[in-house]
């Protein structure tokens, strides 16, 4: 076993170099932590998509409406388990500039179709279903505005007007739902479709999209074809996709974020490999005579190899964990902002990002330390002792 004290002493002997190297590693892992968390938050919807859930939108664009009648026709198809519908409602709390998502939904079916995503107390659910002006609030949204059950909240839309000319919908908080997964977005509200459709000015019996579940994911392809064929050549042709594909396509509107994140992180790590690798090689080269002395004292080639490699891994861990700690604080701070939460729901430095980072730390340590460690291991004692 190699003495940890010796490794630490070797690592800390040149403090300016240690600080600069650690800082370079810190920056790379900070970037990895923050960008990785943002990327994961953006893709949480994709990751958490159910295999048997499909989304039906207007073939022209998902911003175009569909008739309410489509829902019953879809529900009647063989292999369809449940179907529901939703309308987009860009929401603001009155007196607040904070924008968040709101959906006008069918209270009888929406939660059933999303039973694996959202958890809500049965009593609260029933109270919401009974009250036409009732609203279900996501846990994070409730925290942001400190809303509680029973609160009467005026909600405005950035798109819709009421028939009386106002933009304010009075709602009563009947329940607060939580996500089934830590990454699940709960920064939105759900209210009654009937309350919405009867009070807004864009006509009646139209919906935004249909969400359905199939009895078996193996039937998805068949049902997708059935739905789209059924409405082909009608005024309201449809495009049906799996929920996963739908969420992916939605994200691609913003560009290939995953590629951008990967490119930035890869560039940072590549630069890091050059900086730290060079620095480690230099540090070991400067210690040639000392390494020869270690060997003279009886340290085996394997022990010398472990000594140098451990130093390199420790350096990567030192900067890496500092960078992750900073990223954790930064991401935590970001996620407190309602605006950020609206764009990146479930933003946090997750366990998987942390474990990936630890893997990269070890890999970085090994890659940057291997060549210097190998050279130290191979050092001829006589040559090393005579080098001054």
């Amino acid at each position, binding site marked *: 076993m190699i*003495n940890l*004290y*010796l490794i630490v*002493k*070797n690592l*800390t*002997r040149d403090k300016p170099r240690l600080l600069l190297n650690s800082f370079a590693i810190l920056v790379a892992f900070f970037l990895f932590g923050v960008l990785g968390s943002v990327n994961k938050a953006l893709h949480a919807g994709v990751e958490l998509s159910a295999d048997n859930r499909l989304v039906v939108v207007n073939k022209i664009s998902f911003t175009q409406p569909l008739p309410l009648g489509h829902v019953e026709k879809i529900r009647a198809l063989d292999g369809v388990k449940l179907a529901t519908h939703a309308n987009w409602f860009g929401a603001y709390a009155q007196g607040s500039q904070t924008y968040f998502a709101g959906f006008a939904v069918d209270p009888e079916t929406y939660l059933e179709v999303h039973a694996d995503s959202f958890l809500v107390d049965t009593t609260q659910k029933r109270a919401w279903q009974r009250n036409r002006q009732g609203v279900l609030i996501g846990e994070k949204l409730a925290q942001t505005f400190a809303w509680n059950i029973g609160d009467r909240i005026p909600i405005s839309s950035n798109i819709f007007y009421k028939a009386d000319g106002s933009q304010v919908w009075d709602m009563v908080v009947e329940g607060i739902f939580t996500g089934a997964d830590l990454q699940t977005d709960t920064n939105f509200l759900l209210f009654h479709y009937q309350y919405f459709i009867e009070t807004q000015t864009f006509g009646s019996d139209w919906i935004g999209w249909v969400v359905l579940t199939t009895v078996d994911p193996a039937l998805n392809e068949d049902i997708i074809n059935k739905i789209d064929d059924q409405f082909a050549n009608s005024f309201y042709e449809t495009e049906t996709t799996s929920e996963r594909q739908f969420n992916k396509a939605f994200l691609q509107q913003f560009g290939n974020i995953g590629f951008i994140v990967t490119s930035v992180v890869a560039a940072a790590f590549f630069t890091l490999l050059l900086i730290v690798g060079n620095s480690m090689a230099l540090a070991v080269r400067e210690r040639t*005579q*000392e390494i020869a*002395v*270690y*060997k*003279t*004292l*009886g*340290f*085996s*080639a*394997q*022990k010398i190899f472990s000594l140098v490699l451990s130093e390199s891994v420790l350096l990567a861990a030192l900067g890496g964990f500092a960078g992750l700690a900073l990223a954790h604080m930064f991401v935590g701070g970001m996620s407190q902002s309602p605006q950020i939460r609206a764009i990146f729901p479930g933003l946090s430095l997750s366990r998987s990002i942390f474990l990936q980072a630890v893997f990269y730390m070890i890999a970085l340590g090994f890659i940057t330390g291997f060549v210097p460690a190998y050279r130290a291991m191979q050092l001829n*004692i*006589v040559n090393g*002792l005579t080098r001054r």
Partner: protein
Amino acid sequence: MNDDLFRLHNVHKEFSRGKQKITILDNLCLHIKRGEFITIMGPSGSGKTTLLNMLGGIDKPTHGQLFFQHTDIAQFSESQLAKLRADHVGFIFQFYNLMPMLSAERNVELPLLLKNLSRAERKKRVNAALTLVGLQERAKHYPRELSGGQQQRVAIARAIVTDPDIVLCDEPTGDLDRTTATQIMEMLQTLNREFNKTIIMVTHDPEAAKYSSRQLHLDKGIFTDLETAA
């Protein structure tokens, strides 16, 4: 012959420089008994340090046999030689070769890290070695805070802390003033006489050589006085 610690038989060492072969040691034969204090003298380039390195297992002959306690260590692998050095040999260098980032006691402790010893046991042995060289009160000092003579005493403590059979010294007084050199030589003599350590020392200094029980003279890779090598 049974008390031979080392026996060299036709030990030869040569280097190639281009097509030219340079002989450093020319078929040397030598016996060294346990408990001897030997000095190896000779002009620069005569092969003194190369011979010392071979005795210490940090260099190998081109050919020939080098027996240590009746085992030919010329055939040893690198890892066998590393174990031999850790278990049987202590080294003292001209320029001390202490680790600058370690305190005196941590420098002395280094060879003990290769032994399966508890921290308490290591500390006990380090204290004993530092006491023997009269530097216990400087245990926490770093090499840069010590004089040349003190650094060499730390190096001696490091060399003896594992209780080796042999202490090899390469010009141990070469960087020291006369008074300090005398102190160091008296210390080596004590190790030889009171602790029965076999000491083999390379030196240019005839005053230092006086402390030894046998002097060997090397020139161009051969012993100039054959009787002393026998």
